[in-house]
Each structure stands twice: as structure tokens, then as C-alpha cells.
């Protein structure tokens, strides 16, 4: 058992858990941030994707003891222009099927758009390769990323915070 101070979605959160507890379960059980999903537990499906210092990371294999002062951002907290554009595009194009993987998909795509604002199909294939969609909504995920790229390009950096 150890005490850890985490920086999650801009807030300092103290948790007392076993040191081998994956960040996934700290988020879900201790911090009630259940948008980060459990799918496989072995780095295979990407449902547990979060951002650690802006990098898309599988939280199911990230022990809490290794997180340190890294900035943890979950689907509940992400508020970058890219993420907001993705969330809007996902709603506009009706991307989610069951929806279980979509938080992870959006976080993976947000990391992609940050480095490649106009991704090619090959960029999308590479960036999204680690996120499974059991409903196979890949056609719409791809379209959603492209639509979000358009939305992000037209929105001004000063645009206000949305819902």
C-alpha cells in the first residue's frame, strides 16, 4: 500500500492503493473516472487509453507507482482544441456504435491531430493501430478524424470552452 499524489485532469488527487495497481483501476475505482475503460488488461485493445504528458498511453499496464508527477488526462478531462473537434465530429457523424472503445479512440486521435493536423490515411492507420473497435466502426472513426481535422483548422485558438 502506498500513497500517491497524481495530477489528473488538472487537479491534484491523493490515492492510497497497492503500488502495482494500474493507473486504469486508480482512475476507475478510486477517482470514479470511469470513462477510461477496461478491455483486455494486456496492452492489446486501447480502451484504457489516457494521455500522460500529452502522449497516448495504455493505463492498464501503467502501474500507479510509475506515474509520478506526469500530467494525466482522461476522456472526462481532455479539453484541447483537437479533442473538442473530435468530440464534435463524433457526434456530427454518429461515430459511436456501442461506444465502449470511443473514449480511447478519441484520445488516440487527439494525440495524432496535435502532431499532424492534416493526417493522411496512412497516418490514421498508424496512430489508431492500437485501438480496437469490436463493433468495427472504423469507417466512421476515420471519417470522424478527417472531419475533426477540418473543424480544428477552422476554429480559432481563442474559441471558448464548450460544454
Amino acid at each position, binding site marked *: 500500500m502506498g500513497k500517491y499524489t497524481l495530477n489528473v485532469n488538472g487537479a491534484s488527487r491523493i490515492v492510497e492503493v497497492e503500488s502495482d495497481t494500474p493507473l486504469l483501476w486508480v482512475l476507475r475505482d478510486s477517482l470514479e473516472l470511469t470513462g477510461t475503460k477496461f478491455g483486455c488488461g494486456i496492452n492489446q485493445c486501447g480502451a484504457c487509453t489516457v494521455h500522460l504528458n500529452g502522449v497516448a498511453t495504455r493505463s492498464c499496464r501503467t502501474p500507479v507507482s510509475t506515474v509520478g508527477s506526469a500530467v494525466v488526462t482522461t*476522456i472526462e478531462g481532455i479539453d484541447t482544441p483537437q479533442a473538442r473537434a473530435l468530440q464534435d465530429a463524433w457526434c456530427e457523424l454518429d461515430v459511436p456504435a456501442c*461506444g465502449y472503445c470511443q473514449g480511447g479512440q478519441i484520445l488516440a486521435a487527439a494525440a495524432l491531430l496535435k502532431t499532424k493536423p492534416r493526417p493522411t490515411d496512412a497516418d490514421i492507420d498508424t496512430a489508431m*493501430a492500437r485501438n480496437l473497435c469490436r463493433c468495427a466502426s472504423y469507417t466512421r472513426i476515420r471519417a470522424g478524424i478527417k472531419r475533426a481535422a477540418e473543424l480544428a483548422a477552422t476554429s480559432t485558438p481563442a474559441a471558448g470552452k464548450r460544454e
Partner: protein
Amino acid sequence: MTHDPNAGASKLGRQMDRRQFIKISALAGGGLLVASASDAGAHVAAVDGAAAAGLAPVADFAPNVFVSIAPSGAVTLIAPNSEMGQGIKTSLPMIIAEELDVKWEQVTVVQGDLTPAYGRQFSVGSGSTVANFVAMRHAGAAARAVLVEAAAQEWNVRASECTTFEGVVMHAASNRKATYGALATKAAQLPAPVDVPLKDPSTFKLLGTRIAGVDNRKIVKGAPLFGIDVKLPGMLYATYTKCAVFGGEVVSANLDEVKAKPGVRDAFVLSGIAGLTSGVAVVADSTWNAFSATKALKVQWNEGPQVSQSSVDMAVQALTLAKANGPTSPPSGVRAVEAVYHYPFLAHATLEPQNCTAWFKEGVMEMWTPTQIPSSGQGLVIKGLGLAANNVKVHITRLGGGFGRRGNNEFSLEAAAIAKKLAGTPIKLTWTREQDFAHDNYRSNGWHAFSAGLDGNGKVVALHDAFVKMEGGPGDMTAGGFPFNAIQGSQVRSSKLRGGIPTGFWRAPGDNGNVWATQCFMDELAHAAGKEPLAFTLDMLATVPASPRFDANKLIAVLTLAAEKANWGQKRARGEGQGFAICFANNAYVAIVADVSVSQAGELKIKKLTAAVDAGTIVNLSGAEAQVQGSMLDGISAAWFQKITIERGSAAQTNFNKYPMLRMSQAPPVIDVHFMTSSAPPTGLGEPALPPAAPAVCNAIFAATGKRIRTLPIADDTLRWS
């Protein structure tokens, strides 16, 4: 974020409680039961907050269990069936809204709990829309009729002179209008109408348009909706470990050792409960501590008789059985074409592992369950734990995928049995991914030993299928479908392997394997006959006798359309190919054309899929298109990569690293879906586009490479060519 236990039934439910519900039964035919509605238990407050904001306690108009209109004009509609990605939480309320004549933007949708008044709450067999279409229309139309009557009485005019438009009743002659909200209080006092006419389908405004899923905004923000997201005050976290060998039972376990692990609150054996496979429950203060302690579990099992089962042995037995069921004597003067097709067991692998939250207090079992058949879980708990039906309450959460898996509800009984042992404390049971693979109700394996006879003109004059599958579960094969119904005297003779491996409903049961085999063999026959495959199938379809259930002309129409849209028949370079397949399932007619390329090194790329579908009236075009696209890729993902192998009576594949699934780069960049215009009632659409996808791809692989795939998954074969 935490569920308020005192909220019990939702605010909507409580408000509905306060009103007189004399009218409910007249309209819904289901008695006076009150809707107690909630989204995932953890988030009742948030969800109902939205619904309740528009609901004044006294004056709402709630003409039936599905519809409630507040004086503010807010319209709340109940979605009675389980949402697992098939879009039913959006499409059923759309049907109500169409007849009610309200703007979709006015509508708030609330997930219904398991309640007899809602009627058929099964989400299986692509049947939710089919079974509820008329009931939903009546619910909307009856509510609209009362609102019109309320306006007519207010204005002292005839109801027949009034019209409605987007939530407003109008009387053109006197130029008066009133919103539904303004009429709600008056309408609430009026009796239920009888024999309300339904709209002429040609006047539908909402149905057939693209409406995005009602939960999308919550999904993209990570809001808790799913069963696995439920959290109750003081809740503990449980695992339940069963014998990896199917049917094995617990003899003993190192419970004391496990109880000493960090965070563990209890560990015990459950056995002797009707319907429950014996196992060991571990209960801890977090999911991770429960998972960790479960790894330390050492159980002595009585593995039982299934330990001798293996996929290797089954294959040997199946071929022996098929041989014994072969055609007695092939017709003389014909050329025989023979081939054996085989498909393996499949897991459902819903991305959200099986889970259920249960709370037993004061003799009542309350459950939050991601289930396709909520009444089935309730039934298991009633029987297994000896509880009365009215003491077992089921809240339907959103499902992280269904695919037929969650028609079985053994996880509900497991959770309830643990909760009963820990009476007073809510528990959430979560299966690990490994447990989910190990204890599925798999799609049965199957073998088709075909033998056909071609006459001198290349016409099929005999067709025989010796079919073998595991005993139990769905997936039987008959000679009633195409192409058997096109050939006089065609025969299917089935035999079964010894059962014992749990098999069940996997999306498009039966068809998911049988259509693959028959549609690939049809392509094989066309080539053997020296015919162009499309013309060969169209010619055979034209000879199928008419029947009340099946119209071959509709299959001809979708195949012709798909072929045209896909530019069927253009000459292609070696390594490029097109294939097609057709399917009639859930009363829908589907044709799919696949365009593939296969490199000389054997790398398969699916370049394009083109589907033509006759599914009757389309309720939600966006949802319908998503179902067709998704089910095609689901079928291809399974056929390309997946198999469950039985070794020592248990599943050899335990996670996605051993059971690959289609990923982004493998999905075709283009999927065209064309729906036939139709005024027929809606058919099922969650499944029928799955079966023809894999054979279309396999036939395209043959066209590209000359390699015939007769055993799945495709990835087990090399597609290399030179």
C-alpha cells in the same frame, strides 16, 4: 457520480407514481406498472436531472408508459430495449416521435428498466424494431390523439379539423394553435382514445432520416453509461473463478491464503445453486485487488468428462460423421463437384467484459446489468436463489457490445449469488478478459461436406450437404434456403458432435457459418460449370419457387444493384479480384460485393465493400448504415483472423493477442451501403449483412489468386501466389 440509493426508482418514475395511471393499461395493454427508468445506476441523478427538469410533478401528460409531456413542452420517451450499439435506444423513440409529431430536438430519451408493461425487451435476433414497430407507433399516435382532443375541447371545435406540426396542435379555420406543453395538463385528464389511425408511411418525416445516437455526447465525454461503470455506496468488487475445463467443479481452494491478500474482504466457494456453475468468489475493496488475489487462487478441480475434448479430435469425428451422411448414389450422367468447408468456434469478445452489479437488501435483489435479455437474468436469479419475481429488480445499463453474448445471463446469477452471501453490501462482479474468453457461449464449429452434380449444360441438378456441428445451441442447417430451394431433391443431412462445449447465439446464428460455406461453394460450382458467377446465381435465383416468407425477386434486385454499384465484372489484373455473396436473414435481403487485392507475398487488402440491402422501411438511416457497415466488418474480422481452439476441454485462446481482431489499417477505406426504397415494415438489421461479407471476400480472393478458402480463419492459410 455515485448512485443515490434513496432515489430508488428514478425521479421520472416517482413523478409518474404520483399521477393516476388509469389510462396506461388501455394504451399499452400492460397493466398499471409504472416506469422506473434509469441509465447506468451510477448516474441516475445526472440522467434524470435532465428528464426531470422538464417535468412538473402534477401536470405532466403521460398517456402511456413510453410517453411523458411536461407543460414546458419537454417530451420524455422511454427506450425499452437494451442498447449495445445497434441503435435501438435512438430508433424506437424515433418511431414514437414520428407518430407523436414532435421535433426530435424536443425529445429526451430515458432507458427503461425491466418492466412487463414495456412488452418485448429482448434485444436478440434482430427483432427489437420488428417486434416493437407497431407498438411504438401506437404509443405515439395515441398520445397525439389525446393532445388533439384536448385542443379541440379547449377551442370547442371538432378534433378532426385539427392538425399537428412539430409539437403544436393547430386549427386552421380559426387560426388557433397550442403547443403540446400548453395542452399537457388538460390532456392528462382525458380518457384514452381507441382505434387511433396511424400515419400513412409515405408521410413519415423523421423515419428514414439520419439521427445520431442519443448517448453520443455522453460517450465522447466519457460519461458513465455502461454496466461496468456502475458504482454504489460501500460497493465491493468481486471476481468469480470457474474451472477452465467446461463443466468442471470446485473441490477445494486455498481460501485462507487468498483472504490474507491486500484488500480482500471475503473469499468463498459457491456450489449447489441451480443454474450456477460452481466456482470461487473473491471480494475485495477494488477491482485490482480482487484481480490480484484471484491470481493467487489455487483451486483443486474435478475437471469432469469434457477434459477429453479437443478441436483436433472433433475434426476427425466430424469428417467420419459427414462421410456416413454423404449422398447415397450420385445421379448418373452428371459431373460431381465435392468440397468440405469448415469453420471454427468463435468467441463473442464484447469489449466490455461480462459484469453485473448486485445489491441484496431487505429481501430484494437489485441488479444493474448489461444484458440483451433482462428477463433471463431475472429468471435465473429467481430460480437459483429462490426469490420472488417482484423481489428481483433489473436496471438495464448500456452494453459495451452484445453480438448475442449477453443473451446468456450467467454473470447476473453469479453477481446475485455473491451479493446474497454479502447481504446488505452491493458488489460489482467483473470478469477478467481471460475469464471472458474461457467462459463464453461460443459460436459452434461446423463442417459442410458438399457434393453437387452438374449436367452437360453446367446446370446444377443435384446438391447434397452433409453438415456437422456440436450438439446443442443454434445453427442447424435446413434445405429450405438458397441454393437448396432452387434444386429439386436437394438434401441436407445433419449430424452432431458430442456436446459439452457451451455454444450459443453469435451474431446471425447459423447463417454466420452456413452462408459462408454455401456461398463459397456456389462460386465453386459456377467456376466448375464454366459460368460467370453472377449470371450463374441470378439464373438459379430465378428458379426458386415463391413462398410467403421469401421473395427471390428481392434477392435478385439487391444482387443486381450491388453488382451494378460495384462495377461488377470489369477485367482485373492478377492479384486483384471481386467476389459477391447473398443472404436472406431476419426477413432482410442482402447482397455484398467485395473488392480485394492479394500481393504475391500473400498480403490481403480489402479495398472496397459494396452492399445492397432490402430491409423494408428504414427507421434511422444513420443507424441502419452503421449496422450494415459494422456487421460486414464483424463477419470479415472473424473469418479473417479468429478461432477458438479446444484443448483439454477448455479454450486455448485467452486474450486479444491470441484472438486478433480487425484493426483500422485492415478495414476497407470504402464501404458503400445502398438501401432499397421500401414501404414494407422494417425487417431486422443488426445481423443480416454479416453472413454474406466473409464469402464475398473469400470469393474475391479466389478471383484474385485462384486459391479457394475452405477452412477458416483465412489467416491460417497462405495466400502467396506466383
